[in-house]
């Protein structure tokens, strides 16, 4: 009965699953080929060595690490935001949590693979488990990223169960997939209670994990003594940057999917408005952190720090540095601060620049510190090779492909949560609002009566 209702109301959400078209095939082919190319390049790298990259001495880390930090940052879009929104019972979250969670899982998988790309001996990656040293920040990363990946996968999956059951019930192929994943969901009250509990536990759990992930990623840098890296605010700075880029990525995904799958009915102006305000706040916060970070470096005026500072501010990295400031601060703030420009195209532009800007920020963190060694070597130089660009493209293609495939098999918007919203939210919210409002005067405690 309830299934019929969904079908009736939100059938458009299942269109991409039930009648996948040419678009899907073209997209998967193009993306698949790109990903395949990246794998070919990677195998060349394995066979020949990391020499096929543009890395060198002293710039021993480049695109792979930049993209690692970048992708993991984007992953904060999802689970973290969705958890925060759920936790704060923001009702407008309902149509967006699913997408956010998918971003996390897909991008996290991509990001987490990047350090493997970067290894000189990838076949020894498992040494991390057999000979791992817990004192190494890299180990902290491995642990927290795997925890985050597991948590967010579970967190994506659990709320999907009722939707999968709907697909199963509608007989969508491949049936085995849906009946397996639906895990015998019948929508019984007990099941619903368990599901609710699980979601609640996960969302509380996932927040500290998510924060820890980007904090320890920043520790990779901050735990060294290198100029430009050795900074105490790196943890929060990275987390803020991650959420910042995550929201931007989420907005872009929403805008694009809304267009492709004609989700205008679900993703309304209000969602973009709220999220873009959040983005604006993050832009200001990002600026605050950046400012603090560079001002303290400048004021300390340590020679090694200053060398990196000038390298970024007025040296070879000036285009990237100022590009970052423009993309992360000027453009988004100018667009988002005014209602007139806070349109969907405007938001899209702002989000795009933020994503680019945050990538530039990662580049600005990783390369200049390495290119300006303390030890009296000449300034280093780094120009990524075709292989590295190819892998970057492969990463992005994998991301899109992940979405395409997800959209092909699962609803991008949580059917049951929308439904739940329709059925319960209004009443619930009204009740909750009630609790926010001041109590009637009679109920006021006696002490509070003015003397």
């Amino acid at each position: 009965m309830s299934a019929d209702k969904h079908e009736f109301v939100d059938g458009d959400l299942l269109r991409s699953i039930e009648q996948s078209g040419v678009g899907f095939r073209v997209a998967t082919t193009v993306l698949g080929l790109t990903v395949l190319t990246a794998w070919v390049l990677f195998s060349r790298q394995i066979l020949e060595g990391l020499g096929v990259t543009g890395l060198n001495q002293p710039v021993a880390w480049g695109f792979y690490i930049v993209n690692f930090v970048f992708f993991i940052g984007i992953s904060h879009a999802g689970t973290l935001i969705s958890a925060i929104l759920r936790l704060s019972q923001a009702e407008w979250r309902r149509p967006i949590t699913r997408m956010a969670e998918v971003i996390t899982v897909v991008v996290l998988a991509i990001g987490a693979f990047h350090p493997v790309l970067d290894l000189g001996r990838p076949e020894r990656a498992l040494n991390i488990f057999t000979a791992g040293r817990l004192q190494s920040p890299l180990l902290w990363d491995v642990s927290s990223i795997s925890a985050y990946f597991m948590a967010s996968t579970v967190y994506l999956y659990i709320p999907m169960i009722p939707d999968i059951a709907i697909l199963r019930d509608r007989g969508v192929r491949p049936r085995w997939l849906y009946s397996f994943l639906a895990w015998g969901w019948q929508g019984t009250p007990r099941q619903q209670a368990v599901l609710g509990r699980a979601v609640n536990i996960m969302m509380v759990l996932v927040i500290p994990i998510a924060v820890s992930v980007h904090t320890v990623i920043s520790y990779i840098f901050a735990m060294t003594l290198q100029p430009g890296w050795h900074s105490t605010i790196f943890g929060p700075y990275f987390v803020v940057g991650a959420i910042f880029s995550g929201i931007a990525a989420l907005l872009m995904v929403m805008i694009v999917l809304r267009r492709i799958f004609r989700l205008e009915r679900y993703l309304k102006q209000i969602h973009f408005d709220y999220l873009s305000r959040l983005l604006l706040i993050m832009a200001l916060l990002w600026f605050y952190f950046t400012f603090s970070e560079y001002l303290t470096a400048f004021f300390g005026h340590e020679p090694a720090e200053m060398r990196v500072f000038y390298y970024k501010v007025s040296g070879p990295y000036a285009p990237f540095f100022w590009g970052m400031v423009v993309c992360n601060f000027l453009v988004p703030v100018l667009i988002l601060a005014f209602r007139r420009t806070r349109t969907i195209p405007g938001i899209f532009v702002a989000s795009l620049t933020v994503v680019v800007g945050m990538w530039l920020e990662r580049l600005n963190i990783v390369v200049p510190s390495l290119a300006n060694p303390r030890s009296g070597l000449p300034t280093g130089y780094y120009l990524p090779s075709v292989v590295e660009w190819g892998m970057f493209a492969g990463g992005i293609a994998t991301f899109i492909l992940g979405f395409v495939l997800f959209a092909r098999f699962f609803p991008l918007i949580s059917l049951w949560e929308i439904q739940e919203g329709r059925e319960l939210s209004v009443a619930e919210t009204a009740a909750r609002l009630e609790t926010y409002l001041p109590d009637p005067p009679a109920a006021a405690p006696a002490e509070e009566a003015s003397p």
Partner: protein
Amino acid sequence: MILPRRDLLKMLGVGAGAVGLGGCRQAWSVPDRLVELALRGPGLESQVQTICGLCAGGCGLTVRLVDGLPVGIRGNPHHPLNRGGLCPVGLAGLEVLYAPGRLQGPLRRQAGGEHGATTWEEALDEIATRLTALTAAGQGDRVAFLSGEPSELFHDLARRFLHGLGSANLSRLDDAGLAHELTQGIARAPGYDLGGADLVVSFGLDLYEDGPTPIHATAAMIGSRPTEQLGALIQVGTRVSPSASKAEIFALVRPGTLGAFALGIAHTLVREGGYDRAFVAEHTFGFDDWTDEDGRERLGFRRLLLERYYPDRVAALCGCDPALIVRVARRLAAAAAPVAVAGGDAVRGTNATWTQMAVQALNALTGAFDRPGGVVMPPPIPLTPLAALPAPPAPSLFAAAGDETAFGVDPVEALAAGVLDGTRPVELLIVLDTNPVFSSPAGDRLREALARIPTVVALASFMDETAAAAELVLPTPTFLERWQGATTPRGVAFSTLGLAPPVVEPLTDARHPGDVLLELGRRLGGEAAAALPWSDYPAYLKQRIEGLALSGQGSVVTGSFEESWIQFLEERGWRFLGRKEIESFWRTLTQESSWWNPVRSRGDWGRLFATASGRYEFFSRRLEARLVELGAAGEGGASAAEALARGSARLGLEAEGDEACMPHHEPEAARGEGELTLLPFRPITARGSLGVTSPMVLEMFGYTAFSPWQTWAELAAETAHELDLGDGDEVRVESDRGHFAAVVRIHPAAAAGTVHVPLGLGHEAPGSLAAGIGANPVGIMLAARDPLSGRLSRTATRVRLALVKRRSRGGPPPRHGGSEA
């Protein structure tokens, strides 16, 4: 089982390596041969002493062998020249030995112009047949020999070989003693007791990098002294070279003015009375004004200095501060045992001979001759003398001819010009271990000339540019594969003899050049064979060593340096007890590889000053006589004074009259158009030309300029600024003759208006690792001569720089304060 200690060690050491290697093989490619060797079990380890033959520096080294294969080179700590130190090129000795691209066997030019394999038999037959034909036709003097081999021992043999043919055409490319001939009357440059000097003033000679024995210089000035007594150094030059970086005073001067700077110092010494009056009075000639045989009043050096070389004028010439000249002079006057040396830029210009004379004049003023820490004659090596040869069969091709120059010719240029214009016909030329097509500014013309010479035989280990132009290319063993007999390097104050058998069998079908000459002699028969009676080169060496053994002089270098000294003294005590047994001496010498004699007889002025006056001549009578001769030629009846003036004019000198015969500043005769002077220098990685066959040496090549595998062009900051060039920019260096590409490096201090370019790269002979790497600045040099020695100048070419590409990679080394803690 009881293992002898050494064996156990070998097992432990080499076995440990083997485990590592075996492990490697499973994972990744490790040379199979190595793995096999290592897995075979305990290697037999041994050490042999030998001499580095990669340059004339003569450093002693110890080769470590495992199963007879060399696996390591160390400096021999007991060797008096290098005392354990080696330069990067010497350390690359094994890379030279095993280098890719070595000549595998004799080659002969085929009809098509390509070289094809031949055999030693055929090649030697062919040479012998041609030589026989030439001598039969009385054209033995059309045979010439260009040698880059430093050993006197070898040249005694080569001279006899040529003599047997009726030729005196042996040129060693490295004799540079004209200034000594003119002022001291000696043909060979003396030695400088760097170890005993308390101050060395170096003009252009980059003691620690270039120069004949940089490792010895470093050991003598620094390595063998306690920190409180490190040798003090004042450097006068056109760039901050490694020795300039160690100098307590570095005087940066314009190129071509180093002699003027020396004269400015001399002026101050004389004016302030800071010179050695007794020495000047007793052992020099021409200091004060003097009256000649004809009763003419002549200019003395003192007056010349006082009138012409006051600091203000010198400073204006040199582009430095006059106070600097005075400061250096006072420092020199205050030193107890100072010595002045010249080299590098200073001895490569068109005014080189006068520059060297000016520098040597400082030694005369400070009485540095025959004094510990001064200019000395190393004792002769008492080799068995060879039976005297009759008078030279014909004048040497390489002797001065005509009257363009006063005393000599540039051998490469003379050979090339003589062949090309037919005035000096050469039918057969042997080139040994030298690459003048590459290294001489006249290299292009030499290449042309080589094509005209009917038979050119190159004895070389690698196919270099000169060998590529030869008809027959005969492989020589590299130093580790050959018998070596290295005689005292130039400029060293004691005498040494490095004598060592091959460390390994030749890896290629190579023959020792000495054996080649002996074999040719045998094939020629007759007089030639009679002059070369030895069965092989070691037999020749052994005979020459007999004299040394019997003389009882000096000592074989064994044990520690000090021990060998004690032993040496003991041996001197034993001398009168009679002859030493040659067999055991030979055995010890070839085992230990070196002999030395540090004992100089003092007061032997005849060896030091062999001039007519028996004194050091500030005023060179020989130079005067030659100038007069030149001036008088064809102008009968001119007075001596007129002839002298005309002679100087004829050579294009600016100085006239008496000044021309004394050390003076003769402006450098720059050639060509351009805003900069091209100044080549030899980085230490360009020592011994075979260094470029080593990947490591090429990779290190410009290590202090962050320019591996690359030719760079050093510019002073202000020069670069004027030309709007930055560090790392790619430029084209152009002269009127040609151009090459280089990368700009801003140098901390270089004379404005100069561009310094390292020598050593820019080879083109195919098959070499160095082919196509970097550029050879010699290739664009214009011919300008030192009018006295006839040598081609390397410092007279004007060039222009054209920007090709702005810097794309890398950056300059950080400057002071940038980052150091």
